């Protein structure tokens, strides 16, 4: 439908006025399109807005029987409380950051090494390994969480951020490798050949030529490893039971005691933990979308 409208674009700038536009051939489609777009924007933004508005609303306002779409009084009290000493939230944010950063570093490094070998070197078992990586990437966590729980318990890595990081490597390493393989293939091989003729070793070629040339792809791999780990829930829920080692997502779920929900605090915590992925997305969109199209994202 959309494509059909394209010829309209060729119209001269002067024709861009609303009235002229409305007289054009496919205007009905455009009107419907804009209305739908508006509806989609509202549907998309409302929960985000509501989360933010709740986090800034005083409790009296939150529990009043009439709701206003805009907070009557703005307050930072929920943020103060959730970040204060009565909650372990600050520590849990730190845990999340530690695990996400560790996962990102390890998986980008391993991904670059394996990705390079799988695209540029000839050795037996190469295709099998490439295939295994895709299988591993697609293997659902619901099948792995019980055995990983038992394994980590035996290894003494339950309630341990190292154990959680290991669990996260199950999806970030295959993804990073896969993503970087796709990118390495597009790097012209002549550069490497020249370096090899000049006496550089393969190892040097990887770190001196391939990695510097693959900056954007490495960023994409890193961004995804970071966001996937930051947002992960199931493994963290299963592997972490002590509040002190919990990551922010499971910590948030654990604040619910019985039927008691402190919505102001919860939405404040939720807003804080949405910030890293949101900021990465808003400022690194180019990379995010590149990774997305490489089959990066779990929906």
């Amino acid at each position, binding site marked *: 439908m959309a494509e059909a409208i394209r010829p309209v674009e060729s119209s001269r700038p002067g024709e861009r006025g609303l009235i002229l536009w409305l007289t054009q051939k496919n205007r009905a489609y455009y009107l419907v399109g804009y209305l739908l777009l508006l509806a989609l924007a509202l549907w998309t933004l409302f*929960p985000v807005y509501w*989360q933010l508005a709740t986090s800034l609303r005083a409790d009296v306002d939150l529990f009043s029987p009439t709701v206003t779409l805009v907070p009557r009084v703005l307050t930072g009290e929920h943020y103060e409380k959730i970040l204060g000493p009565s909650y372990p939230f600050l520590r849990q944010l730190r845990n999340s950051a530690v695990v996400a950063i560790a996962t990102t570093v390890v998986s980008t490094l*391993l991904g670059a090494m394996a990705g390079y070998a799988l695209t540029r070197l000839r050795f037996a078992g190469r295709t*099998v390994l490439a295939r295994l990586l895709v*299988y591993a990437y697609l293997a659902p966590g619901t099948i792995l969480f019980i055995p990983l729980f038992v394994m980590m318990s035996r290894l003494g890595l339950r309630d341990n951020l190292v154990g959680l990081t290991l669990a996260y490597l199950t999806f970030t390493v295959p993804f990073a490798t896969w993503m970087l393989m796709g990118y390495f293939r597009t790097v012209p091989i002549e550069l490497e050949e020249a370096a090899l003729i000049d006496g550089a070793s393969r190892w040097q070629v990887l770190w001196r030529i391939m990695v510097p040339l693959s900056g954007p792809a490495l960023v994409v791999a890193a961004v995804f490893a970071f966001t996937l780990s930051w947002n992960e829930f199931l493994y963290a829920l299963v592997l972490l039971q002590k509040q002190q080692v919990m990551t922010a997502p499971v910590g948030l779920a654990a604040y619910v005691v019985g039927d008691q929900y402190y919505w102001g605090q919860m939405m404040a915590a939720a807003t804080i933990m949405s910030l890293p992925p949101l900021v990465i997305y808003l400022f690194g969109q180019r990379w995010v979308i590149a990774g997305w199209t490489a089959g990066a994202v779990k929906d």
Partner: protein
Amino acid sequence: MALLRTAERTAVSAAPRTSRLGRDFWLGYALTLPAFVVVVGLVAYPLGYAFWLSLQDIKVGGQGQFIGLGNYARLLLDSESRIYGLFWNSVKVTALYTAGALAGKFIIGMISAIILHSQIRARHFWRTLLFIPWAIPAVVSAFTWKWIYNDVNGVLNTLLTNLGLVERPILFLADPKLALWSVLIAAIWQGSPFWTMTFLAGLQAIPRELYEAAAIDGANPLQQYFRITLPLLTPVITVTVMLSAIWTSNAIQYVYILTNGGPANVTETFPLLAYHEGMTAYDLGIASAIPLVFFPIFAILIYFLTRRMLRQEG
């Protein structure tokens, strides 16, 4: 598991006479070893281990006893056992949940992609905006939706009561007739940007000339959509459906946070059932067996996806 076995066989047949190792075998193995260790140690081994656990009567902290296919028999056949009803309920719920989520994400993703692909003003801005749910952690949006649906002071209920549309709050998450729908809406909200993205990429790959030719022949936009866009988008749709089917059916956050499987198990998908069996009933055997029953379906999906992805990569 079948997948792994096939892969192994290929590996054996392609192995190990030195002359056939390839000219870079030494560095090749050195560089891939760490990733290989992760895949084998943290994915393949646990997968095999899950199967082994599923053959045992084993509780958390206890010794396992080998019972063959006993757990599977209890799940699938033994209508006397407690878990039998729960399991078949989870099959039904998972199917409904997955089908509903895929349908919703497809519709919203398609509409969004078509609009974003047309000549609208500020396309970049709208695209950024519509992808925002993807960037929000699933746990966060699950809680936000729970708050929106809340019966006491939840915005949806307050609005409906203030507008005089309902007398008393609707129990969006506690009414067995509504709960699955409510969870679905939250899951669709978060999941549709992925579909928008893949569809948008697919639309951009369709040559413009086709539409120009069709326009000259007098095809209207709807005809063009059904005769050109949809057929040419089919490969993209297939891959997206398969990927999303795996991820959606396995996602636990929404059901866990919004309803925890309730009311009366109407939202207990199989991952949540496995979680409850393993982590609250401490039955590791049953908890391992539940997802493995679904494994053949995933294995088939993964097999086709992998073939396609490897083919794409050339």
